[in-house]
């Protein structure tokens, strides 16, 4: 199944029938994806080079980007959102993924009873919609309903309760942790799979060498699941920098208090579609979308071309 026949032979190249089936296999996906996703997205990104001047849509080159980074108000909002987004991502990396790894490590212990029940329970939040997750957690953390203060009272920590979602310095952390709660099932599942893929012989060899318990995890299993952790990191990155729904349902489109939970997704939503009296600004919205796309692209490229190449893969 070669590309094209090369022509440096005496008997000449062989003519072959076109392999129509490749086209047939690719076409449905290509058509739907291009027509419904790519073309509309291109249309949107194109808008970032245009703006309304005197009521007319005019090509302004990189003018919108100049406004976004040059105008103090725009730049403040943007950097604030980016900073919050980075914190959002860091919390996921520091909390969600380690918890996911730990849960997976425990679940993959041989002959663990009830493993399926645990797995199902922990994966459950991942299946819920933002509408549900946002509403439930607002209720639980609400100082009015009293579930959280009650629960903290049970463990003698009531004095530590505070209206986290309403305080500028705790709101972002609280929202991030809700998101972690919702999504921890995904790293757990993927790491679990990677751990199960380590052949029993390798673990048995480690047992014979006296590498057991924690040191077995650190010295044997962890290095072997690094590629999976790499994939999870990049999925977390892409997911976090595209995130929007959870902040929107929990904290509203203004991502309060005082913009403390504003991430790129919410900034984009407000700008692009407008909110309350604020009118949607398609051009600036598209500009922010383009910047987001570039950030994500940069992250993914960094992963693909730098990090992924350094992670050693092992064949079992």
């Amino acid at each position: 199944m070669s590309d094209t026949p090369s022509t440096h032979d005496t008997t000449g190249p062989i003519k072959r029938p076109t392999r129509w089936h490749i086209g047939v296999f690719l076409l449905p996906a290509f058509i739907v994806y291009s027509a419904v996703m790519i073309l509309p997205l291109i249309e949107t990104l194109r808008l970032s080079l245009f703006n309304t001047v005197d009521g007319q849509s005019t090509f302004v080159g990189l003018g919108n980007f100049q406004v976004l980074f040059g105008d103090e108000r725009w730049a403040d909002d943007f950097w604030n959102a980016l900073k919050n987004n980075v914190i959002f991502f860091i919390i996921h990396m520091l909390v969600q993924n380690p918890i996911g790894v730990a849960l997976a490590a425990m679940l993959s212990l041989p002959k663990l009873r009830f493993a399926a029940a645990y797995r199902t329970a922990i994966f459950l939040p991942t299946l819920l919609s933002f509408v549900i997750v946002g509403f439930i957690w607002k209720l639980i953390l609400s100082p009015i309903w009293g579930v959280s203060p009650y629960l903290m009272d049970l463990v003698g920590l009531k004095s530590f309760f505070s209206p986290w979602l309403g305080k500028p310095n705790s709101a972002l952390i609280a929202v991030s942790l809700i998101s972690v709660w919702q999504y921890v099932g995904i790293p757990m599942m993927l790491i679990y799979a990677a751990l199960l893929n380590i052949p029993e012989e390798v673990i048995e060899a480690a047992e014979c060498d006296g590498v057991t318990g924690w040191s077995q995890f650190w010295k044997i299993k962890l290095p072997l699941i690094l590629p999976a952790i790499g994939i999870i990191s990049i999925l977390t990155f892409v997911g976090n920098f595209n995130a929007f729904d959870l902040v929107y349902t929990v904290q509203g489109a203004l991502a309060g208090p005082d913009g403390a939970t504003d991430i790129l997704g919410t900034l984009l939503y407000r700008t692009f579609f407008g909110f309350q009296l604020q009118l949607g600004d398609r051009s600036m919205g598209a500009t922010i979308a383009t910047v987001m796309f570039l950030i994500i692209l940069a992250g993914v490229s960094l992963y693909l071309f730098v990090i992924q190449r350094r992670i050693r893969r092992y064949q079992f």
Partner: protein
Amino acid sequence: MGSLQLKSVRKSFGTVDVIKGIDLDVKDGEFVIFVGPSGCGKSTLLRIIAGLEDATSGSITIDGAEVVTVPPAKRGIAMVFQSYALYPHLTVKDNMGLGLKQAGTPKAEIEQRVDKASAMLSLEKYLARRPAELSGGQRQRVAIGRAIVREPKLFLFDEPLSNLDAALRVNTRLEIARLHRELKATMIYVTHDQVEAMTLADKIVVLDAGVIQQVGSPMELYNRPANLFVAGFIGSPGMNFVEASRLGIADAKTIGVRPEHLTLSRDSGDWQGKVVHVEHLGADTIVYLESEKVGLLTVRLFGEHHYAVDDVVFATPTAGQTHRFDAEGRAIR
């Protein structure tokens, strides 16, 4: 029925040439084995014959018909894969019958051919099982059965024995030899194991680096290797090579002597050396010695011999059993 001709068949992946112009003639009913080290292109060549890879250029005819652009299923071939490649979701019977069913063969005939093949391979008991419920040897027999059922012009085997253990390998080798005799079919067989090649083949094709080094019957290759590569590859343990200049021979570059064509003596002989290692195999004894004049030598003696490490001995090549090679490695005849 079942002859095969290859004419200047080439194959390149991008700029890398893996098959560099192969010409080959296989007669009806012949058992031909492609042998060579890994990466020599033997499997690629087999897959080109099967139609699983496209040749970049050249011509392939089966029974006189050009098949270069014919899809595998229409070439009248059957193939047995190293990994068995059984359809995991089908029973043994369906695995064997699928090709015929696909070709629209009547049900009764499929039934009959499957029965015949499974009898030939003693697979009757397993017809209803799925591949996962079979042992490695049974799976390999099913894979062979699947090929037999198709009654092909050409059987293609791609290292069919390398996933089996040693004892099973010998058995299956015998079985394949028996099948060849019973079916009188043309078989092309790829292996990297020269013992398999020597024991099964009517004709061996030695390949290296995408080029045929020599074609011939097992004994032709053994007795009259065309070049250094073939000389070294065929025969076990491998041929001893000595620089001709060390022996004062001017009209050759290298002299080759097979281990079994050296005699040993404690008293006198052509090349003095010191024993460095001895292998007792029962029927044979292999002695390795380090000679100042000609370097490391392997000597194969028939029966039991009691040499010890550090013994000083003399080796002498049997007259008329040495091979001479020129500067390009070609045999001088």
